């Protein structure tokens, strides 16, 4: 992979949690590169460190050791932990997040939930994003509905739209189909694939669902906090 095509570069990332005197390595010495517009899926059994890795890659958490570079710039480096404010600044510039639980605000309509990130931070050119995303995700008719009036699949589509409203360059999806049935999971997989191919979005997916993982360009397996294959 040449330098200009690399979006994310992790070098010897380690995350250690302290439990009393015991040190628990959630991830250990992980080095990897993710290219621009690449769709990567992390799989592995529970406790293998997938979520910890995606949290560090997505700047939700600081690593204990190692460095993380995005677009050639070192974002997190070894000993220097970023403050919550600094992490937030990076997150809102670069990332969109999708979680297993949709976390939609029950009193806001679909459109308002999608626009919620813009309340705190708005990138230039996001003004016309809403109709485009509603159409792209097939939820135009649900625009003024409340989350309680939506199905699980529709709620996850709203969460995806919310993650995309500020035009992120990297989309992180942590078990996005964990609460959905097979058909809805397949739909979400197709949407992620479409966003990756048509919008050129870098997608990082964490899943237990092998069928969903197979929609990715590359599957990386984690075991006991370390990379296994890929």
């Amino acid at each position, binding site marked *: 992979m040449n330098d200009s095509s690399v979006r994310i570069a992790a070098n010897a990332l380690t995350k250690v949690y302290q439990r009393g005197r015991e040190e628990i390595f959630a991830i250990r010495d992980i080095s990897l590169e993710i290219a621009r517009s690449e769709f990567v899926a992390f799989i592995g059994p529970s406790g293998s460190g997938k979520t910890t890795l995606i*949290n560090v890659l997505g700047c*939700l*958490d600081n690593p204990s050791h190692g460095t993380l570079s995005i677009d050639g710039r070192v974002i997190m480096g070894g000993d220097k932990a970023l403050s*919550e*404010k600094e992490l*937030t600044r990076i*997150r*809102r510039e670069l990332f969109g*997040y999708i*979680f297993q*639980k949709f*976390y939609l*605000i*029950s*009193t*806001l309509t679909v459109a*308002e939930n999608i*626009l*919620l*990130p*813009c*309340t*705190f*931070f*708005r990138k230039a050119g996001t003004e016309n994003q809403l109709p485009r995303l509603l159409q792209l995700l097939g939820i135009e008719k649900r625009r003024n509905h409340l989350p309680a009036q939506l199905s699980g699949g529709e709620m996850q589509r709203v969460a995806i739209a*919310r*993650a995309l409203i*500020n035009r992120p360059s990297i989309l992180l999806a942590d078990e996005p189909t964990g609460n959905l049935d097979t058909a809805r999971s397949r739909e979400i997989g197709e949407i992620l694939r479409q966003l990756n191919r048509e919008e050129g979005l870098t997608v990082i997916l964490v899943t237990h669902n092998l069928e969903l993982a197979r929609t990715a360009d590359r599957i990386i397996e984690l075991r006991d906090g370390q990379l296994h294959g890929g």
Partner: protein
Amino acid sequence: MLSIYKVSFKNLLRKKTRSLLTVVGIGLSAWVLASLLGFNSGYESALNKDIDNMGFQVLLTAKGCPYEAATLMLKGGTGLRYMQESITDKVLTHPEVEKITPMLMHAVFDPNKGESGGITAYLGVDPATFPAMKSFLEFQQGQWFSDSEAQEAVMGYEAAELEQREVGDSLLIPEYNIELKVVGVLKRSGTQDDGTIFVPIRAVQSIFDKKGELTALGIKVKKDADIARFEEKLYELPDVQVVSLAQVKQTIMNLVSTAKVMVASIALIAIMISMVGVINTVLMSVFERFQEIGILKSIGAMPWDIFKLIWIETFVMCLLGGIAGTGLSLALSKTTGILLRRLLPYAPTGSLIQLTPEIVAVTLALVLAIGLASGIYPAWRAARVRPLEAIRSEVE
């Protein structure tokens, strides 16, 4: 685009009953607070008005002279003491004096009054100074005297009712067989003037052979004067007594201050309860939305954004409660006044609760300030939530 205010406002609608009860709590506190401030201002103003309605703050009488009609009646119209009219010049030398009005009271036994006769009192007043000092007196019929020595009478509302006289009727002074012409009947004033028969002072001096004599001198003191010091100076005059309405007012205000402390304590307790209510409501809402706050931070909200979001919720509740409470205090000011009147040892006439725009503004500002102060801790707690911890937590 979606504003942070809309998000905050809609958050309040999630637990409608809880938000409503908090707003009601704040509203009740605002009501008590506005009523208390209105009472503080209204009571003193009503009392001042009552005292101003007397036209003068200091009454100078000859030592031992009854200075009000009721006492005179109790004494059977006797016991009046007199001062020389020249005392007015001495009083006028004091710089504290704004106006004076001389008075001469005389009482006669009227055998035709009631079943076994009664006392009728005549108050001789100076047409040049008395009406100006008692400018609040209004006429039901007629007007003040045509001449400073005219044998005319102006009757208070009750006196005219009792004697059944109208303008143009004559009024016989028993024993003296002198007829006074009724030239005016006053409207009800709610003061002892209602039962008084006013006659020009020169006429009273002439009829009752009291030339150059007075029973009382009403003194209106300048606004910035030290009344207590002025009264001490008046006691330097020989054989006089000073009846000070400032003292009367002070005594009443002392009595009322106990009631004020009680009402203030209730207001303070109500405010504290509503503060705890606000903190509890907002904190509960923060704990319930722990994960959601974490998500908001993960999608770009800075700690200050979260602080603002929670703070605005507190502000909206306090604003609604404040508006409801001040509205309630305005709507129920009369009822509150009636209730307070029952609690108080003495209540002046007029409205006890005086709600001015300033009081409404101060109440709203205080409620908002207290509410915003109450919102600081929950908002700070929310702002400190770390997204990862919130997302990992199982609290919902």
